[in-house]
């Protein structure tokens, strides 16, 4: 028994490189050998889906990309899934970016969904307005007059020459607003400066860590549902019936979380054994 306890105490100060190896394995292996765990949509993801479902063909959706490569694994799958849902319903998509790297993320998502999957036409079915610096001021500018913020789109075409920009002058002209956000400026600013003052229906997708911050707005009804991190993306993929990167990443995340919880429990057992011994002597 004493030897076993010795082992537990020693394991408590395990070289962190072993932990790194275990984490690497539990993340990589499920990607190659998927477990196919069923995904259960939460009520907040279902709310986002229901909100988009209410849109009709020809309705206008403003989608904002506020994330970069670092948070791409969490946000990009949900952005792709949402675009799929919107294009499936023939909703016109207007994309704006409050983060400079958001524009590249938007381009990638549009190429995958609008161009390759749904064969949508640029300028008629979707438009990428691009990035502008100014955070909240940009949102306020869009609420007031889009053309004061954007004279040209990301391709350098004048807004007045783009067919789907006819009669679109401010945020109030949109039927739906979605913020794919990984921080500031993002969801909270969209609620405070656009969705609330204008009264436009808004949903969001954020990193898992941001859910805490955004949840009060969801609960108060200012935001119609939230997709939280990669699980949120996987849930949305399951709701629209198109499995993507979110779904395939969930097995890896599931096992990784389970292993981390295992580490925490083992670390605590070791801590207790050590504490008991130190009290004894």
């Amino acid at each position: 028994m004493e030897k076993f306890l010795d082992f537990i105490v020693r394991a408590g100060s395990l070289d962190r490189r072993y932990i790194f190896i275990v984490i690497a394995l539990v993340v990589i292996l499920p990607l190659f050998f998927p477990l196919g765990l069923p995904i259960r949509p939460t009520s907040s993801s279902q709310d986002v889906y229901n909100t988009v479902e209410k849109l009709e063909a020809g309705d206008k959706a403003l989608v904002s990309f506020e994330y970069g490569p670092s948070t791409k694994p969490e946000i990009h799958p949900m952005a792709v899934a949402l675009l799929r849902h919107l294009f499936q319903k023939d909703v016109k998509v207007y994309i704006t970016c409050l983060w400079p790297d958001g524009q590249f993320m938007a381009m990638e998502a549009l190429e995958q969904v609008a161009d390759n999957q749904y064969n949508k036409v640029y300028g008629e079915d979707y438009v990428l307005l691009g990035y502008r610096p100014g955070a909240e001021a940009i949102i306020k500018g869009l609420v007031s007059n889009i053309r004061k913020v954007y004279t040209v789109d990301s391709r350098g075409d004048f807004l007045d020459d783009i067919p789907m920009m006819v009669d679109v002058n401010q945020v109030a002209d949109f039927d739906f607003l979605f913020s794919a956000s990984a921080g500031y400026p993002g969801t909270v600013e969209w609620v405070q400066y656009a969705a609330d003052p204008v009264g436009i229906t808004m949903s969001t997708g954020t990193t898992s860590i941001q859910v805490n911050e955004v949840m009060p707005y969801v609960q108060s009804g200012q935001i119609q549902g939230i997709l939280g991190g990669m699980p949120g993306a996987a849930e949305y993929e399951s709701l629209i019936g198109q499995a993507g990167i979110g779904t395939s990443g969930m097995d890896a995340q599931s096992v990784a979380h389970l292993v981390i919880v295992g580490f925490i429990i083992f670390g605590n057992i070791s801590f207790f054994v050590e504490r008991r011994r130190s009290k004894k002597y």
Partner: protein
Amino acid sequence: MFMKRQLPIAIAATIGFLTLFGWFVDEPHIKSFVDDDATQWFDILASFAMFLGALNLLKMQAIKVIRKQKGWPYAALAILGFTFSFTAGFILLGSYNVEISQYDDPAKVATVLASEINLDEKSAENILIAMPEGDTYIIDTPYFTKSGADNVVEQINAAGGTANMRATEWGSHISTRGSLFNWMFRFIFTPLSATMFALLAFFVASASYRAFKIRNFEATLLLISGIIIMLGRVPIGGHISAWFILYIVVLALSAGVNTWFKNRTYTLASVVGGVLLVTIAGFIMGWPVDQPAIFYLPVLQDWIYNNPNVAGARAIMIGIGLGIFATSIRYILGIEKSYIGE
């Protein structure tokens, strides 16, 4: 003194009051100033701030390199990276397309085209033949240099085709797929950023193993809710039966009984009694994974997100809001003068 002290304070106070009034006073001029002019001023200032930020970054890193301070090679790398992105964005266009409009013999032009688009000659020839008359075929990937594109144009023209070089417009070269800047973003910035963020998983695991300990009541609460959120958010959490959690709860309560009474009989009784109770209830209910719902991890994590979490988040938000309000008033009234260096 007036220019350095009173004037900036007067400007801040005037603009501050005007912006504040914009929310409460229904006056078209003030509204227009707040909604249009002020936001455009902000956009212009934000653009300049980016330049200032970039210059500051260069200055700080350059000082580090010149003085050979600790970690100076990283500073040198930062300057190198900055210079490269700046050059790719502002100096080099890095995006030249080749478009083929005519050809005499498709087979000859296809020989050149095939090597440029990584296809076999037959497929390249088919692409040319399928090209409608009067139309042009643009090679998908642009060339980083003008000379590179010119070279291909020359080869195609020598093979009996008519090709032209077309430079991408300034501005849109940033977002053009395959341009130098775009290449840098996709193949340098993206993997580096993703790698940095992915490392978090390793450090979180290592840190939780070492630091996430039940030292006191607050730490225990944090640990339990952390575990519930971690497992409840992912699909595997849905496979952990509520009955399993119930057994753990029984064991935890028994540990509490042991600590409180320090009596082995009581501890044994609570363990046996609790386990028996749960087992009987399980047999009666037919062991459904998600019942009793209160012990089902996905339901529990939902409850934590929607109740204690929202309560805490709201408290923090209200605190921050009041703080912002107080600070703004100090700025508007000229009490806070840190922005003029006082």
